[in-house]
């Protein structure tokens, strides 16, 4: 009598798949975006510390961070704990077949675990109160409100923003007695970060070698493979998740990675800017704090990526020598081919570009895959003169080592 709602999910049927494949072939997208254009990101901070709602187009995620004192694990007695919980049920999937549901939440959970826990982005040692006895356990609850593709990016942005927004109470431990201070007694303390990772998702189709960024649910379901890359603001690779059936060459992945690194940097800058605005509002007085009520209707309390970063762009045009400007430019460029044309000449001028150039040599060095290496020689050739020009200090070299590690990882996956 009633159709199973799983069939209602866009992109699952054959005609839809064919449609998307054809559209991608013609370099067009259903919502009129270009292949490397992302949807606008909106942030809204709650009244409590560590409550953030993120919307990425129609994809909406609510993240809440809470903390609790607990005992550490025996293997790491002087480190706090970071726990990530993904809630896919609820308002996002009212009637979902259990198996796809499980799979989705597992993938998302593992991606978040790798991005935030395995990459050790939060300084867990600072969360230790008394070794082997009391540590802070940070719990992140990720509630998916609506799924319209690219849950990965929405949840990593939400998680990072929530963790950065979160403040924990101060605590002292003396004479076997824990004393937790209220906000009135002592100011709350923000978490310490070692780096700030954010993911960027690409979809790859068999019909075209052009990857598309920030897929909608239709595009994501119809995709042959989905690549999720997590980069931190220093443009270091934290997680790479590549799956699916589309044959992908190294060149495409490198191209994705380069754009993703820029995008991640811009996103982290955006989150920082949004946080500082929220801070300002809090300092100005309680009346201005809207909390999540700001989500309703059109209010100036929503902090959108295009608005904030657009502003920043204007500010930067006064002082043209900043790198973020370049990042923004490269993101807003229409065609990826054009980006390469645009970015590569500008490489010698910016040190961010120098970072990216340092990824290329491993292509040549590692002889594991002769075919893709051949494909990328043209690029590597372009990258090399840059590299020789760069002031390759020790730090850079160390970084390069890191990159080549992750590079090899990437290759195994391919």
């Amino acid at each position: 009598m009633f159709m199973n709602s799983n069939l209602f999910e866009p992109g699952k049927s054959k005609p839809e798949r064919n449609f998307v494949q054809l559209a991608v072939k013609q370099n067009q997208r259903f919502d009129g975006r270009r292949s490397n254009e992302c949807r606008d990101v909106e942030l809204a901070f709650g009244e409590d510390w560590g409550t953030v709602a993120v919307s990425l187009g129609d994809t909406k995620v609510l993240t809440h961070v809470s903390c609790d004192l607990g005992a550490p694990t025996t293997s790491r007695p002087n480190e706090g704990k970071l726990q990530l919980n993904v809630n896919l049920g609820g308002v996002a999937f009212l009637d979902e077949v259990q198996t796809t549901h499980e799979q989705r939440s597992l993938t998302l959970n593992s991606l978040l675990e790798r991005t935030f826990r395995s990459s050790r982005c939060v300084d867990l040692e600072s969360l230790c109160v008394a070794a082997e006895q009391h540590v802070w356990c940070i719990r992140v609850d990720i509630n998916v409100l609506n799924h319209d593709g690219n849950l990965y990016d929405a949840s990593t942005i939400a998680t990072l923003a929530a963790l950065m927004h979160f403040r924990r109470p101060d605590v002292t431990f003396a004479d076997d007695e824990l004393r937790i201070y209220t906000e009135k007694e002592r100011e709350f303390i923000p978490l310490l970060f070692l780096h700030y990772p954010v993911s960027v998702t690409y979809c790859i189709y068999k019909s075209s070698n052009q990857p598309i960024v920030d897929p909608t649910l239709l595009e994501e379901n119809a995709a042959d493979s989905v690549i999720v890359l997590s980069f931190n603001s220093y443009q270091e690779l934290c997680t790479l998740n590549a799956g699916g059936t589309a044959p992908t060459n190294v060149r495409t992945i490198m191209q994705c990675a380069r754009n993703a690194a820029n995008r991640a940097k811009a996103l982290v800058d955006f989150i920082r800017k949004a946080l500082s605005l929220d801070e300002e509002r809090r300092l100005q007085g309680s009346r201005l704090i809207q909390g999540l009520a700001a989500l309703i209707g059109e209010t100036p309390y929503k902090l959108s990526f295009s608005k904030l970063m657009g502003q920043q762009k204007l500010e930067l045009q006064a002082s043209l020598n900043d790198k973020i400007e370049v990042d923004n430019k490269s993101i807003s460029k229409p065609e990826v081919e054009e980006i390469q044309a645009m970015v590569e000449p500008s490489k010698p001028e910016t040190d961010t570009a120098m970072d990216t150039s340092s990824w290329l040599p491993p292509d040549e060095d590692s002889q594991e895959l002769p075919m893709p290496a051949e494909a990328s020689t043209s690029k590597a050739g372009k990258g090399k003169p840059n590299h020789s020009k760069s002031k390759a200090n020790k730090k850079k070299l160390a970084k390069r080592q890191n990159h080549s590690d992750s590079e090899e990882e990437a290759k195994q996956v391919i």
Partner: protein
Amino acid sequence: MNLPGKMDVEKDKLRQMHCEFNPLSRCDGSVMYSQGATVVIAAVLGPIEVKTQNLSIDGSYLECNYRPKAGLPQVKERIREAAIRDVLELALLAEAHPRSKMSVQVQELEDRGSVDACAVNSACLAMLIGGLPLKCSFAAVHCIINEQGEYLLDPDQSETLHQRASFTFAFDSVEGNLLLVQTKGAFKIAQFNDIECLCRAASAEIFQFYRSQIAKYHGRSEAIADQKEEPSSMET
């Protein structure tokens, strides 16, 4: 935490209500509803396929879930969920769709007092906007007696810390019958009656809010909605 609180609102008035219809794309009806700083989001889906164990030949099966902002639902949330389900079961026209399921999900976004009432109201709005059959619409109001023995309608969380008693009433729109009574704490019967009257008066304001918001959503002017004298069952 410094709160906006209810400073600018009188003690016998509701906090300001706001709502946004269909913020979510993958359900039949959804609403983001706020009362003061308390924000909830409700979504409905139905009528849909039902599991055989829940199948009923003389009415639809109602599934109702309430999700807290952090962690898994505990006893407190289960009680809230049961309250929403009780009210919905009374108001839902279950006979309209036998052998099917109606699914209602409520997600808490921010709890700043009287979240029980907000959850019930958001569920009602979601049912209305999702076009699910209802016998009548309903509205819930929360009220407390504070330390000084004053009645405080729709209090903010900061005001509920020292309360003598708290009440949640739900009324239907057609006959004004009581659909839900939840009380906590010590109070006199006279006080109970007073608060019931206070809440009943406030529920009229909420019904008016429903009407104006739905009229606005369907592109009708508020004047037309005001003209409607009797509170209709408002099936959209």
